[in-house]
């Protein structure tokens, strides 16, 4: 439809809210008050052109106010204004408005004296006193409206982000439930396998790894966070199973900084990294594949690293930030959701190995925030 085509080129509704409100507000103010302002101020009617000149002057005043307010917007975007308290913000607004009113007077006075030079009572003192109040009120009101609307928008945006997060969580839960095997069936079946194994130790080890990992995964599927130590413990059981599958051709080592063991990490999230390392590592590695899992804190950031001795195979289509494989993309989504802006995932070749790395900035604080925001969504 052509109408839609037009819209994509330019449309008022595509203009950011700020510009729509600012332009509309200033136009309204201008047209609403212009006649009043024009005739309220006494001028000598006998001087032809005085009315016209005065109109020019008023137009200039409005343009300066319009532009100064736009400048104010960029000023208010400084992070500083998000940190200070409401009272302090109010005080700031008063002073800033006063300062801007003075600047505006400075900008408009030359025009005023030019336009009104025939009126001899145009003294700077009188001018400042009579013009400072309307300007001051303009900037104060503008600032208040600006912060009010911004707060309102922030709240709405946060709400919808939380809503989206909650929806995704439900979605994931639903998927999990759909694909779930009845745990009774699973563990009873494994018990039967053991009973028929006639004491085979290697088999017992695989069954143990499998059942322990599955039990951990089942027990923690509802938990947003678990201590890193627990996650790694379960990962080691998963590694037992994988090592049994490939015999001596695969060795998995886990090295965790003991200080990092208590840190909260998302539950059941590291397994796809190891699975991926084994899958792609085996494709590219000629000899025995070595997989190394490391975790340590480095200056307030938790580094979780899974490296394999294979060769980096670039994904066929997508750039690095979109890792291949359902497991890894779920992992990335999980990280984004739990740690908005605080985590990073990267994968690629490094010193002759393939390294997948997760960085979580201040994991304790991030976990607390995620839990608080989820509680908030659940309660509303």
């Amino acid at each position, binding site marked *: 439809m052509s109408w839609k085509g037009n819209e994509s080129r330019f449309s008022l509704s595509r203009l950011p809210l700020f510009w729509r409100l600012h332009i509309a507000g200033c136009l309204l103010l201008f047209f609403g008050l212009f006649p009043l302002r024009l005739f309220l101020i006494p001028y000598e009617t006998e001087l032809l052109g005085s009315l016209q000149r005065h109109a020019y002057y008023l137009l200039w005043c409005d343009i300066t106010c319009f532009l100064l307010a736009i400048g104010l917007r960029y000023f208010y975007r400084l992070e500083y204004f998000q940190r200070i308290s409401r009272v302090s913000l109010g005080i700031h607004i008063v002073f800033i408005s006063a300062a801007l009113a003075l600047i505006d007077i400075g900008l408009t006075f030359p025009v005023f004296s030019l336009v009104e030079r025939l009126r001899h009572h145009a003294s700077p003192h009188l001018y400042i006193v009579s013009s400072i109040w309307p300007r001051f009120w303009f900037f104060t009101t503008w600032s208040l409206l600006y912060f009010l609307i911004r707060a309102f928008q922030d709240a709405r945006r946060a709400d919808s982000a939380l809503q989206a997060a909650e929806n995704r969580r439900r979605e994931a839960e639903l998927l999990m439930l759909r694909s779930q095997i009845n745990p009774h069936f699973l*563990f009873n079946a494994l*018990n*039967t396998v053991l*009973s028929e194994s006639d004491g085979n130790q290697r088999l017992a080890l695989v069954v143990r790894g499998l059942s322990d990992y599955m039990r951990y995964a089942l027990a923690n599927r509802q938990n947003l966070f678990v201590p890193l130590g627990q996650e790694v413990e379960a990962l080691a059981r998963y590694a037992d199973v994988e090592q049994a599958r490939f015999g001596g051709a695969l060795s998995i080592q886990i090295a965790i900084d003991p200080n990092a063991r208590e840190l909260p990490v998302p539950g059941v999230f590291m397994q796809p990294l190891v699975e991926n390392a084994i899958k792609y590592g085996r494709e590219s590695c000629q000899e025995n594949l070595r997989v190394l899992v490391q975790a340590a804190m480095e200056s307030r950031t938790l580094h979780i690293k899974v490296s394999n001795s294979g060769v980096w195979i670039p994904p066929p289509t997508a750039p690095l930030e979109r890792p291949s494989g359902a497991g890894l993309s779920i992992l990335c989504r999980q990280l984004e959701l739990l740690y908005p802006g605080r985590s990073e995932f990267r994968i690629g070749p490094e010193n002759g190995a393939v390294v997948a790395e997760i960085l979580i900035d201040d994991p304790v604080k991030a976990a607390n925030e995620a839990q608080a925001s989820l509680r908030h969504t659940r309660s509303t």
Partner: protein
Amino acid sequence: MTWRTLIIDDEPPARKHLRRLLAEHPQIEVIGEASGVAEAVEMCEKYQPGLLFLDVQMPRATGFDLLPKLTPVPKIVFVTAHEEFALRAFEVNAVDYLMKPIFADRLALALKRILSGSGLDPAADDPLEAGDAVFLQSGRTLRMVPLRQIVCIVAEGNYSTVVLSDGKEFLIYRTLNQWEKRLPTSLFVRLDRSILVNLTHLLEVKIIDRDAGHLHLTGRKEPLMLGRTAINRVRLSLQERQG
């Protein structure tokens, strides 16, 4: 001393597996196997075993249904494939549990615990959750009770009486303060010095006058008499739950 032991499980391979693992422990003498609760009751009466390996999930009746039928109460190791709710032993050192699949070292650990009489750590102060169940033993009866079935707990000095929704009462060696520490506040409210009430079993509150009221609870004909503070507490906690 050898422990006369009975294995109760509906799956023959599971019984075989346990029997083989228990053969490593000379102090255990397996005297029989049962494939269900009914059979187990008979065998318990006949052989009076000192130790049971009791599968929780069995057709027709669960392992827990066997408990009230056991006198005297033997030591019990519950065997479960997957917990529906957390079993937190409570002042019952006759109980332990094992998860399927059963491994030799974990079995050895559970045996060591239960035979030495320490059982699951009853002193553990980990708080209970609304979905949990506790074992209550009073004299010769042992029962597994989901917390939701507890109507109220009344202090009796160092003991306390636990009242269940079916009207049964258990006198437990445990003070009300100890209960209060572990019970979930989402269910239980301490009304005054002598009583903890499960608010989900609250049927009616009758205000008699400014300083007294009656509390009607599930399964109890007689209302509880309460003072002003207690009534206020009920009101507050009900408001909290609605808000």
